[in-house]
């Protein structure tokens, strides 16, 4: 197996007296589609927030490639190749779909203020490249016809897709999806599963996703980490997790 893209060592997050995440360790090898599951309030989103720099872990290390990203600002971590979506959709609501995607490509431009004001060749070339890239990404998710619509006017499922497109536009190596299928029906979820598998193949991505839809998780994830009350209780391929005593207990409780 190739080197680990992401390695988390003893990551702990303490909010006052509450340990939301307690010395969690896991790793994601290059190219893997990994899942993070657990009952409500297990600390999954807190894990995401620590990985992306929104929270600073109280203890532990997060290695992205060979860089420790603990203490970095979210945008710096994003520049290192880690992008995310949000559980409660956070699009740039009053901007157009295209603008949403273009903003994510900002880090790749090299033209300055004067290029902008003087409409230099560099400015025009890079703007055209950005637009093409954004439109081709939108096309993967069948959103290219809605490029000029205001983001908040999209139906819920498409807003979720747009979040993924936006994250993709930052050219990530690893993408974190926080409940990508929340609020979608069966056929939409199925379509989403196929799209996720496709972008992973086409863009050579590693993916970590949080999801409550077990069909989706068991269907596409290669390795699943299960946490409960901030502690890792099991880890392994879907077949193993489905039959794990501890996981079943965490979800359904113990018979007295």
């Amino acid at each position: 197996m190739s080197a680990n893209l992401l390695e988390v060592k003893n990551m702990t997050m303490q909010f006052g007296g509450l340990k939301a995440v307690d010395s969690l360790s896991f790793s994601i090898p290059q190219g893997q589609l990994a899942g993070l599951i657990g009952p409500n309030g297990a600390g999954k989103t807190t894990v995401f927030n620590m990985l992306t720099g929104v929270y600073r872990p109280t203890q532990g290390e997060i290695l992205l490639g060979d860089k420790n990203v603990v203490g970095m600002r979210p945008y710096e971590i994003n520049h290192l190749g880690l992008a995310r979506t949000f559980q409660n959709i956070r699009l740039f609501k009053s901007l157009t779909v295209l603008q949403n995607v273009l903003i994510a490509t900002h880090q790749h431009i090299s033209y300055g203020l004067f290029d902008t004001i003087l409409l230099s060749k560099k400015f025009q070339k890079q703007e055209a490249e950005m637009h093409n890239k954004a439109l081709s990404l939108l096309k993967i998710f069948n959103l290219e016809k809605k490029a000029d619509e205001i983001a908040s006017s999209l139906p819920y499922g498409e807003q979720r897709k747009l979040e993924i497109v936006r994250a993709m536009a930052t050219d990530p190596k690893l993408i974190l999806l926080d409940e990508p299928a929340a609020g979608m029906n069966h056929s939409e979820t199925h379509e989403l599963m196929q799209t996720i598998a496709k972008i992973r193949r086409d863009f050579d991505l590693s993916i970590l996703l949080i999801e409550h839809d077990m069909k989706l998780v068991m269907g596409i994830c290669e390795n699943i980490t299960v946490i409960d009350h901030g502690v890792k209780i099991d880890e392994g391929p879907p077949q193993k997790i489905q039959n794990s005593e501890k996981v079943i207990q965490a979800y359904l409780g113990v018979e007295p």
Partner: protein
Amino acid sequence: MLKAVKLPFIAFSALLILGALLNFGVNAYIQLMLLFVIINSILAMSLNLVNGYTGQFSLGHAGFMAIGAYVSAYASTQFSFFSESFGFVGIFLTTIAGGLLAAFAGFLVGLPSLRLKGDYLAIVTLGFGEIIRVALLNMEAVGGPRGISGIPSFPNFFFSFSYSCFWALICFFFIWRLIRSSHGRGFLSVREDEIAAEAMGINTTDMKVRAFVLSSFFAGVAGALFAHVTNYISPSSFTFLMSVNAVIMVVLGGMGSLSGSITAAIFITLMPEALRSLQDITGVDLRMVIYSLLLILIMILRPQGLFGDKEIPDIWRKYVRKSA
């Protein structure tokens, strides 16, 4: 390059012709009001960059304007590098100096205070504006409460008008093009959702400071123009009321609309003056009462401002072309 200056050049030529006509067509009072309209437009457009596009609430714009005005006024009264006939070169250089110093002040104020949001940022910038005013009030070198008088000016209205229009156009095209570039979209993303912007690789602190610095530069330029147009400035020219006026222009015109800022600048500057003649009829000064009522009425009818976040071309496309 040619494309970049074509539209500004056409606009400037048109304004030059307008200036030449107004030079002879109207009296000095109206001419002065027109210059104030242009200066206020620059002020409103620059504040729109911070309050409208970047979504930060600044209430200290008069402070930056004061810096620009005082730097330009002081430099042009104390040093005379150029002979009388080349005075305009001096004015041009001191205007830029005023803008740059205001931008530097914007950087110094912005860096620590832009961590704050909303009301808190408003209070800090309000405090900054007052500090500048009180500091100037106590600085003997710049005349203290007496201010600076005898600031060199242009020989006639035509030159003042052209010079002000020159800066107004620079300000307009600068912000217009900036907002339609990736840098400008960065500003917009900060307004929309800071957390999401950070997660998408936007350095939000950097964006806010940049917006603040650019906005301060043009406020400084507006201040310098004000100094050269009126020939006299004092700390009482740059009170809190001036900052509030700038905010009113931005909000009334629409947050994130340059067309709106200019329209509102025209309205806010001319309305109190236009209502002056009313006093002859009523006998009492109802000017401010009517002015305030009009503001309230507009905000009730158009809470998003006259233009919302649209520009005149957007509205043209939406209504005029559709019906054709």
